[in-house]
């Protein structure tokens, strides 16, 4: 399928040009022309006042749809601990499998049989488990080789994985090998009721727009999802399922893990797993200013994060940075203190359930995404809030 302009109808009004997210329309001899940047997203079809832009079907559009059955979740582990995102994916995968009337399977490399059973209690009907010690620590080549092989053998229609450093590193290899699509960082997953295709929604252009992506013909349809974006399913201690033990075969790799260095500070810094985050920006004013945020975070049992401005000032280390060039978080509660709400910051936190903004400038854009906004001086508000919360919790 491609998009075409009917030159006879085109009035040269240029309305379509600004509608194109990919800058793929140019004016040529007074008429609009579609260039090679076109992604066939159809944004321009409805904006043309003359109805001069149309879709053209091609022979190759009638590609045969790949076969597949079942929804799979890759259950990621590090140091023998299954990542939280895996349980969230089982929640999302369960819902998709039920919509399709099919089974949900998990794939686990490393860990124990007890861990595999836990995946069943979180919603899986089956777990493909390989506990070869060679697979315990993450390594792109063996992991992608084994997962590709399993997929080729069992042909699931959907494969989901965490958009973590691990998932985002080795899943692309699997997709490349299987000649199928992979959609990164999805924020919502659904089944198209008519075609039964997976509709994958993800932010693009630094979160300025959302795009719905399809993988209409190739199978499996593969997607990664960031931690904390999906909700966990229901845990049932009595759920039964099947554990299929697998042999890794001969494992070869041209990369070797020499050592793993953990960098953990006193506060839990794994922001992506945090339930509650208190974040500070330039308004916090100094390294010392962050002290009141640490106190609020302690009262809430949460972590402290920061905007890039605060990190650049040297008030807090980079690993606390949230945003386009930092971490993406989506806690239950995000309290932004002295953060203006630049789009690069917002893309890292706007999927949080509840956002509280404290800023003395009522015009600050952070208030556009805030569930609760308080206009005021953070040095007055934050300590009072800490006190109230401690009272409410009976501390």
């Amino acid at each position, binding site marked *: 399928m491609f998009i075409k302009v009917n030159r006879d109808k085109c009035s040269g009004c240029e309305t379509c040009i600004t509608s194109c997210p990919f800058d793929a329309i140019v004016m040529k001899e007074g008429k609009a022309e579609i260039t090679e940047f076109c992604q066939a997203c159809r944004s321009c079809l409805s904006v043309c006042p003359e109805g001069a832009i149309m879709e053209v079907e091609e022979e190759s559009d009638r590609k045969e749809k790949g076969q597949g059955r079942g929804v799979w979740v890759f259950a990621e582990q590090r140091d023998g601990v299954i990542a939280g995102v895996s349980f969230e994916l089982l929640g999302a995968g369960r819902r998709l499998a039920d919509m399709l009337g099919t089974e949900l399977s998990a794939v686990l490399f490393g860990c124990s049989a007890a861990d595999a059973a836990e995946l069943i209690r979180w919603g899986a009907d089956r777990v493909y488990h390989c506990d070869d010690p060679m697979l315990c620590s993450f390594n792109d080549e063996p992991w992608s080789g084994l997962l590709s092989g399993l997929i080729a053998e069992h042909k699931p229609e959907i494969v989901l994985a965490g958009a973590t450093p691990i998932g985002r590193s080795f899943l692309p290899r699997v997709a490349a090998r299987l000649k199928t699509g992979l959609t990164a960082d999805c924020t919502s997953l659904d089944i198209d009721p008519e075609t039964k295709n997976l509709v994958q929604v993800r932010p693009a252009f630094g979160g300025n727009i959302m795009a719905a992506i399809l993988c209409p013909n190739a199978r499996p349809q593969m997607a990664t999802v960031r931690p904390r974006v999906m909700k966990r399913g229901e845990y049932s201690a009595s759920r039964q399922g099947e554990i299929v033990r697998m042999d890794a075969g001969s494992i070869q790799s041209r990369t*070797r893990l*020499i050592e793993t260095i953990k*960098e953990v500070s006193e506060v839990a810094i794994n922001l992506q797993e945090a339930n509650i985050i208190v974040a500070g920006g330039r308004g916090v004013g100094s390294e010392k200013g962050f002290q009141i945020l640490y106190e609020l975070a302690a009262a809430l049992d949460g972590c402290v994060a920061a905007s890039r401005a605060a990190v650049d000032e040297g008030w807090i280390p980079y690993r606390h940075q949230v945003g386009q060039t930092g971490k993406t978080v989506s806690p239950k509660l995000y309290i932004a203190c002295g953060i203006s709400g630049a789009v690069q910051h917002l893309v890292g936190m706007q999927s949080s359930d509840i956002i509280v903004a404290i800023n003395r400038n009522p015009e600050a854009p952070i208030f556009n*995404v805030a569930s*609760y906004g308080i206009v005021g001086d953070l040095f007055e508000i934050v300590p009072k809030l800490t006190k109230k919360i401690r009272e409410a919790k009976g501390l």
Partner: protein
Amino acid sequence: MKIVVCIKQVPDTAEVRINPETNTLIRDGVPSIINPYDMHAIEAGLQIREKAGGSVTAVTMGPPQAEASLREAVSMGVDGAALVSDRAFAGSDTWATAYTLSKAIALLGADIIICGKQAIDGDTAQVGPEIAEFLGIPHVAYVRRIDDVRDNAIVVQRLMDDGYDVIESSLPVLLTVVRELNVPRLPSLKGKMAAKKAEIRKLTASDIGAEEASLGLNGSPTQVKNIFAPEAKKDRQMLAGTADESIDILVKELVARKCL
């Protein structure tokens, strides 16, 4: 040491805004830049060349205008530049992009291929590892430091959520790099002169021997269904009154919504 750096020309997303009335992107006057992560890839290539010798070639797949980003790379000091450009590449998703680039890189030859962690327009971080798979070579993603480069091996640090992994890989290898790796240099005067005169090698679909069915929109397994503006938060609420009053309301709400 033959080093190839993959760079992408992208719109400066910091400048892109949505028109709330028409739900479309406002791109007027949005400048094109080299993807910021790819600046670090260029710098990494140059630093490896300075230590180990060899040459650095910058490659981009894109429209004819992308030549500007290659000239910028030359001004920073890369030795050669190739523009992979053909109408047949139109509408490529990450799979087709990686396939096309891998064909071009195979033609150029490389011991070390360096990509940015991700492109800021697509944010997929997939093209690098996919290129490695197509070339049948190992890759290391999120490289934050290069510890050692030898004739047939490299030792790098890979950034993880909880710290970093130290990894040794054989060559050839593909690396994707994060910002912490280095500070990209500014173009020198000599570099700027060279950039003006530099010859940019042009590669088409037939030059790289690519299969037509794997290119562009047709070769792309994924399709964009539609594009829309992100939803605004529905439940926005400004808490008025004195500081104490608004804090009272807030704490009640947080208790009601089970945050405490």
